[in-house]
Structure formats: C-alpha cells, structure tokens
C-alpha cells in the first residue's frame, strides 16, 4: 500500500519534473562557477612612441617629463609646484572636427595624481594656446599638463597612462545620432620618469 504523500508526488504533472530538473542543473552549474571562465578585459599595452588608433583619435605619447616650465611658452610653475607634462601627437581620424581633446589621455602616479584627475591644462604646443578641438586629419602636438607639488615625482618614478576614446551612440533620445559615450580607456602605457628639469626663471623686471 502506497502512502498519500508518494501518491501526490507521482501525480505531479510531467512539466513540473522537467522544470525541477532544469533548475537543479542550473543551480549545480552556478554553484560550481558556471560553464566558462569570466572573460578578463585586458587593454592593449603600447610602448612610448607607438601610435594607437582609436575610433575618434589616433594618439602617440612621445615624452613624459617633469619641469617647472611649460614647453609652450615662458610660463613657470608657482613656488613649490612643478608640472608633469605629457607630450602627445593627436590626430582626429574622423571627417568632422573633434572636441575630444582634453579627455583623450589620463595619467596615474600613485600617491600624486589619481587616474580620474583632469589635466590642469591642455595646450597646442605649436601655438601655446589651449586646445579646444582637433582639426580633421591634421596631426597636432598636444601637451597635457598636471600641476604637482615640487619634488613629488622624481627620476625613476613610474607613470601609468591611459589612452581614452569615445564612441558614437545612435538613436539617443536627446541628441539623435550625434551623441557619444563617456570617454573610456582603450590602451595603457607605462613609463618611467627619466627627465626632471629645473629651469632658472628670468629675473623679474622692475620698474
């Protein structure tokens, strides 16, 4: 004679058994970590001087150094400060003027500059003026400048650089096909400071 409970179990519809078996399988697989390993998104690492072509801009990081003078003009850092200068060659590879200049690069120097810190200035080296956009198809020397405490970065210190890019968004509710994603890193570069220069400021003019 069978018990009422086992009779109820046998009376369950077939699809309940199917769902129970599938749920059990999914649970076991999930508990064991899934079918595949989690893909690691590794950004390409490029050496100093090598061109990286992104969707909006191609970039070459040419030189990274510390100085108390801007490379574009005779402006000197204030007392107790220096500049970390990253000299790049940027080219807008699209067919429209690009305002993606100031966001094209970020640096990280542990304990001094965080990766999310905006540069204090972005200069067109040939003209010494603030770079507001990249002309179409013209490689331009752009200097990214961070003001740092005097002596906070020394020769031999490692600087980590991230090359950023932005991507067009189609069908944005506000901007239609003219919107872009937030800048995001697409390549990494690691270099060592070999050049810390101190230029003697000219004596101040007195009247």
């Amino acid at each position, binding site marked *: 004679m069978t018990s009422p409970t086992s009779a109820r179990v046998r009376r369950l519809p077939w699809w309940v058994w199917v769902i129970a078996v599938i749920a059990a399988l999914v649970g076991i697989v999930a508990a064991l970590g899934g079918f595949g390993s989690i893909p690691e998104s590794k950004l390409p690492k490029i050496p100093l001087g090598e061109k990286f072509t992104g969707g909006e801009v191609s970039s070459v990081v040419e030189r990274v150094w510390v100085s108390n003078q801007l490379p574009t003009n005779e402006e000197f850092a204030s007392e107790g400060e220096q500049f970390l200068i990253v000299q790049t060659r940027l080219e807008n590879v699209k067919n429209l*003027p690009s305002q993606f200049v100031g966001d094209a690069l970020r640096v990280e120097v542990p304990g001094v500059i965080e990766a999310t810190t905006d540069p204090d200035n972005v200069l067109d080296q040939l003209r010494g*003026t603030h770079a*507001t956009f990249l*002309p*179409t*198809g*013209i490689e331009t020397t752009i200097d990214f400048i961070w003001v740092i405490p005097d002596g906070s970065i020394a020769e031999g210190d490692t600087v980590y650089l991230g090359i950023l890019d932005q991507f067009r968004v189609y069908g944005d509710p506000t901007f*239609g*096909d*003219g919107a872009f994603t937030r800048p995001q890193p697409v390549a990494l570069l690691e270099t060592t400071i070999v050049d810390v220069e101190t230029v003697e400021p000219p004596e101040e003019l007195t009247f």
Partner: protein
Amino acid sequence: MSARRRIQAACVCVVLLGVAAFAIGTAPTSDDLTSPFYVSGPANEPVTSRALTVEVQGARLAKSLDVSGSNSLRFSLDVLETEQTWIIIDALVETRVNNVSLSNTQLRIGDVEYRASDFLPAPTLVEFIGDPGIPVAGSFAFEVPTEILSVDDAAHAQLVMRSILSSQLDEIAVVDVDLSGLEVRDIEVVRFSEIAEAR
C-alpha cells in the same frame, strides 16, 4: 475555428507585419526630422539665413599667418605657422538677430568638415561679428591638410555658417567657394574684424 479561418487570420497577420516593417523602414530618422535647413549661394553675393547675411569676398592659401594686426594683449605671436596649409576666407557678415556666434563655422571639402580656428588672436570673425544690422568685415582661418587642396572637391568647397554644432531646425547659410588653382603663399595677413560700410 475552422482551418480556413485560421489560414485567413495568419495571412492577415503576415500582411500587417509587412506593412509595419515597411512603415518602420521608411520612416524618417530623428536626425532627418530635425536637420537644419541649408540656404546656399555663390561667393561674392549675399546669402541670407534666419540669423545673418554673409558675403564671401575671397579665399587665400598660405603656409603661415601674419596676425600682427591683432589688438589682443594675451597673444604674443606675430606669425602662426602650420605643418599643413591655412585657408583664409574673407567675408562680410551682418547679423539679423542678437547673440549670434560663429565659433562653429566650418569649411566643407567633399565629405570632410574643418572648423574655423579659434586660437587666432582676437578679433577674427569667430569672435566678433557685431550687433544686428551692422556689417563687419573680417576673416576665418582654417587649418587643412595640404593634400585636400589637390582633389577635385576643392573646387566645390562650402563655407557653412554654423553657430552651434547641433543646429537642429535652424537655417544655416552655406556659401560655395572655389579653392582650386589658388596659389599657396608663404604668408598671408589675417584681416581682423572691423565695422564695414553698409551695403
């Protein structure tokens, strides 16, 4: 439901799906619906849009710009070099409404657009175009790759008087400019904005 009715219903569904797909496929995009209205005209003639009237008076090519005529105290250079080529467009601009900006004026050559340089010392037409009804003469300067001037499209360049990058549903004056056959000089003088005589 009979088999015949089922077939009829299925056919109606297929037809409706086809109509919906056609409607979606042929509907204008958001950009189509909000694109600007371009008002075109030739050089040496006034071209009028909602915001301004522009008359292109000439185009020059140079390897460097003489900007010594600027009254800007913040700019120390007298000559602006380029590794490529400067295109200088001389124009007469008269605004028709307040607060018109030409900082996004572009030169279109083929399917490529170049923006007027904003780092020249003031006052070029990018910074100063005067109050409504007062014509101002001056220059725009565009830095372009030298090789673009040797293609056929250079003969059909267009000055696009865009005030902001997204000029949806606004009128934009576009002037045809022939850049073919122009001599590339070593240096050209930038004409800084000044109030001109009324036409």
